[in-house]
């Protein structure tokens, strides 16, 4: 729709853009030449094409006859130039017939009613399955050979595909509001078609007719070439090519193809001109190119400013036995002439068996941090770090290939969307086995057995049968289990789970979280758990890192998360999660303002604009990550250093361990389950109802929160498209 209005506003600018590409320009020039030949060719070269040079029969190319002469001594080039008119007239005739047939068939559903329309659609569906040339030959049998017969045959053969096009276009128009209004208003079928539908499909139809004319030109040349089209003494390009191949080919093979060159150039001129216009029309909604360039330049400037102001995190001394050591990690993407840096110097360690949460709003750079650590950022994105140590190897050195085996065996990834993270064309068991076969040196048979064993380990029922199924036969929860099963195929030392439960049901979420906990405890695997949901992180992690605008702003033990956080942002995140004690009649607390875009990070503390405590220093200088109690914080005015009054300004964080909504519901569901287990069916059903109500209430509350936390433009599930944003 936006395209449409833009179309009407400045069609000339659109056309100019269509021919700004080299291909579009060349096509347009060729088309102009071809049309000029068709209009004036017979006047200019008519006489020359009739003059017989009897001393030079079937001659080769010479200064006098550039393309040689035919068996009658007539100049070949002149004949080809004269033939342009007939070739192009016939092509246009066929196209006109196709267009009319297509419009009649395509509009049948609105004009003749739904029932007739259905039959017509069915017929079109069958007809378009056949190649156009076969249909043309069918009609050639019916109508016999001859110029106009062939034009009709090609026109009718092209009808079904034009009908398809009309159907699609008409369907698009009928969906618009004003057409629906006209229909409701009782406008007649013909009037509806003539006044509302036709004018709106006219433009794309004409553009497509240009493409169709190119195809018709080639098809007509084919039929003439076969002797089914233009008959002697008339001649078009196809007919001339036939004659040349019969008479001239054996003496001057390349010159005899001259009519063929013209067919190709003319056909391409029509098709490519149409394609260029069509493409330019559909790209209009992208907006004015000049403006976009300006926006990009500005973004790059801001990124450069932010970069200059960036102070490296003061990192604690490297933990000697850490599974993962990250120092000053940055991720950069090119954006137009400049670049953006969604991750700006992140440093942390994860000890063996430790579960660390990484929380923040979407766009804070947490997923990119995870992908960068795992070496999965693809060019044009760039990852840099002063140190990126995993199990004693520095991943920032050497190429990605050098650490392939270590990463393959010891680092497991669980991604956000289980529906799309498994390959739809491979059996689940095979996808697991592939990993063990590649890095675990197992035979395929052993790897398959291991896959079944691991699927059973992630509590997938009937693992042996399930292993032989495809992902689409799994539910969402089962797929996420399979992903976790993939993670524990070998001997992982670290699992990076990027929002593993966001796409799942609340009850399934619980099961997946329990499973991750169990694996962590049994095998002593470290876990980097990424989530925008503070309450989930509080449930599963030992330590929490809070990210904002590409930097870590606070790290703290999970025990201090509720009430004990120092950074105003952390406190705001916690306060935004509803608990059982939350008064549902009051609006849920939200964080005012919007998250910072990676392209426009302000000079001082990135959170200053949204922070109730911010002062002049916060807006000018960026605070470094400094030790604070048993964690770290990057804030000029950490809560706890000031008066207790600050706590009140921050939306009343509840001191002490208030159970989160999730935990409370978990308990409720659990007690309901216990109570129901021994009870009669009726009681069971009631309990299920109750659990369902609780679940629904929680789900809506959670959705509300998520929306509140994420800002309005985000849907209920946070898409993991941060990678694609630049």
């Amino acid at each position, binding site marked *: 729709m936006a395209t449409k209005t833009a179309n009407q506003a400045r069609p000339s600018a659109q056309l100019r853009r269509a021919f700004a590409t080299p291909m579009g320009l060349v096509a347009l020039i060729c088309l102009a030449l071809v049309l000029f030949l068709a209009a004036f060719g017979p006047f200019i070269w008519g006489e020359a094409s009739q003059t017989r040079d009897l001393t030079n029969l079937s001659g080769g190319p010479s200064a006098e006859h550039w393309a040689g002469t035919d068996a009658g001594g007539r100049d070949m080039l002149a004949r080809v130039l004269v033939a342009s008119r007939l070739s192009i007239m016939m092509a246009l005739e066929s196209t006109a017939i196709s267009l009319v047939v297509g419009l009649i068939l395509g509009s049948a559903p609105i004009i003749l009613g739904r029932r007739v329309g259905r039959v017509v659609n069915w017929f079109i569906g069958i007809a378009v399955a056949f190649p156009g040339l076969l249909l043309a030959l069918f009609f050639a*049998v019916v109508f016999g050979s001859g110029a106009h017969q062939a034009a009709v045959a090609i026109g009718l053969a092209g009808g079904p595909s034009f009908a398809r096009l009309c159907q699609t276009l008409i369907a698009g128009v009928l969906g618009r509001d004003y057409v629906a209004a006209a229909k409701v208003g009782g406008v007649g079928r013909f009037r509806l078609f003539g006044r509302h539908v036709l004018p709106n499909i006219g433009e794309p139809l004409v553009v497509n007719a240009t493409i169709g004319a190119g195809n018709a030109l080639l098809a007509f040349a084919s039929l003439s070439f076969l002797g089914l089209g233009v008959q002697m003494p008339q001649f078009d390009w196809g007919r001339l090519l036939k004659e040349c191949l019969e008479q001239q080919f054996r003496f001057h093979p390349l010159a005899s193809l001259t009519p063929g060159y013209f067919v190709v150039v003319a056909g391409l001129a029509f098709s490519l001109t149409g394609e260029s216009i069509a493409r330019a029309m559909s790209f209009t909604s992208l907006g004015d190119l000049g403006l976009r360039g300006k926006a990009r330049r500005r973004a790059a400037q801001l990124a450069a400013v932010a970069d200059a102001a960036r102070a490296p995190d003061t990192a604690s001394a490297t933990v000697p036995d850490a599974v993962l050591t990250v120092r000053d990690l940055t991720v950069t993407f090119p954006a137009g002439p400049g670049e953006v840096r969604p991750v700006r110097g992140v440093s942390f360690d994860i000890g063996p068996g430790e579960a660390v949460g990484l929380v923040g709003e979407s766009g804070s750079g947490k997923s990119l941090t995870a992908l960068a650590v795992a070496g999965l950022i693809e*060019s044009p994105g760039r990852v840099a770090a002063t140190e990126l140590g995993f199990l004693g190897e520095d991943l920032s050195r050497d190429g990605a290939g050098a650490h392939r085996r270590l990463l393959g065996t010891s680092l497991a*990834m669980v991604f956000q969307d289980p529906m799309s993270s498994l390959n739809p*064309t491979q059996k689940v068991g095979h996808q697991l086995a592939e990993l063990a076969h590649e890095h675990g040196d197992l035979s395929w048979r052993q790897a398959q057995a291991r896959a079944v064993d691991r699927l059973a380990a992630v509590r997938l029922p009937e693992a042996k049968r399930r292993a032989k199924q495809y992902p689409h036969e799994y539910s969402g929860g089962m797929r996420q289990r399979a992903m976790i099963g993939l993670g524990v195929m070998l001997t992982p030392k670290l699992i990076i789970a990027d929002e593993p439960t966001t796409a799942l049901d609340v009850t399934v979420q619980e099961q997946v979280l329990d499973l991750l906990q169990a694996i962590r405890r049994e095998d002593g695997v470290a876990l980097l758990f990424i989530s925008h949901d503070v309450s989930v992180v509080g449930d599963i992690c030992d330590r929490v890192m809070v990210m904002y605008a590409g930097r870590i702003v606070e790290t703290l033990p999970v025990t201090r998360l509720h009430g004990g956080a120092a950074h105003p942002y952390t406190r705001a995140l916690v306060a935004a999660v509803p608990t059982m004690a939350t008064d549902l009649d009051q609006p849920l607390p939200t964080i005012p303002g919007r998250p910072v875009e990676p392209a426009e990070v302000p000079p001082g503390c990135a959170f200053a604009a949204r922070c109730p405590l911010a002062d002049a220093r916060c807006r000018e200088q960026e605070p470094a990550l400094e030790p604070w109690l048993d964690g770290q914080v990057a804030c000029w005015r950490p809560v706890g250093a000031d008066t207790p009054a600050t706590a009140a300004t921050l939306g009343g964080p509840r001191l002490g361990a208030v159970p989160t909504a999730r935990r409370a519901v978990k308990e409720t569901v659990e007690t309901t389950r216990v109570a129901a287990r021994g009870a009669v069916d009726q009681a069971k059903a009631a309990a299920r109802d109750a659990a369902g109500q609780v679940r629904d209430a929680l789900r809506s509350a959670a959705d509300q929160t998520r929306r509140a936390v994420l800002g309005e433009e985000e849907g209920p599930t946070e898409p993991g498209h941060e990678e694609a944003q630049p």
Partner: protein
Amino acid sequence: MTAQPAAPVLAGGGPAGAWRNRLRRLAQAVRRSPLGRCALVVWHNRWVRFALRRAGRLVVSLWVVVTAAFSMIHLIPGDPVRASMGITASPAAVEARREALGLNRPIWDQYTGFIKGLFTGELGDSIYLRTTVWDTLTARAPATMSLAGAAFVVALLIAVPVGLTMAVITRRGRAPKAELGFVGITVVLGAIPDFIYCSVFAAVLGARLGWLPVANTGNSASYVIPVLALAMPPAAVLTRIIRVEVLGVMNTDYIRTARAKRLPAWRVYLLHALPNAVTATLTLGGMLLAGLMIGTVLVENVYNWPGLGQTLVTAITGNDYSLAQGIILFFGVGVLVINTVVDVALALLDPRSTVSEG
């Protein structure tokens, strides 16, 4: 309201109700019997349902093609028999020909006879070749089909590696100049018709360089030019499609999973990305193969290939209606068979396509 009369109302209601109950009981009995249970299992198997649905569509399409081929002669304006024999032919001769073609019989009779003929191989006689249409079809079809088949294989052998390589080279906006050049070249190459390729190849490789025969000589070297000519346009189109499809697949989450498994790059591209790009490729490939088969008509005429295409053109120009009808019918059925094979192949490669669509 009490719950008491519920059962009698259902059972009662006169003879109709009794019949309904009896039917229901029968249906239950059938469902419980071993044979019935088997039938239910079979019916609920998606492969069976897919096969039934696809077979049904094939039968309907076949009927449309057969009917179209039959009506072809009757659609010809004027008197086709007179037209085919010229103005000078005597009325008696025209009548004799009309009778030989069976055109004097009632139309329904002709239609049933035509369909019966399809099963017995009696499609009429060719006037000029002085053989039956069936014999001509069986004698000349192999030449055409080997040409189309070889061209299809060559097109795939060009398109898959080139398309995949170009996707890898130009992924995520890398090498924009290579991309622009590639798109331009494939658009132009894909738009040139096969008979032009055939003429050019014959002129350059045959006449100018003398490496290959300029027209069919019957040996295996004669295959090179027509097969290449036929394969060029579809190869260009397929290459472009494969590149776009693979590019799309490489941005998916499951390719990220494959990369997270630290598989070697060739494994990611060939075993994870390519099979997922095949669906669109194959759908389009089916249409291109059908187009290839019809494209032989032109190439055979350029290269003097003794196949059905050449025969069809002689039949049309010579008003040899039965022969033209038989060959058009052959091509039509061929297209349907190709479409069916492609659908089945799609279902085997991507099991999701058996469940989708109603």
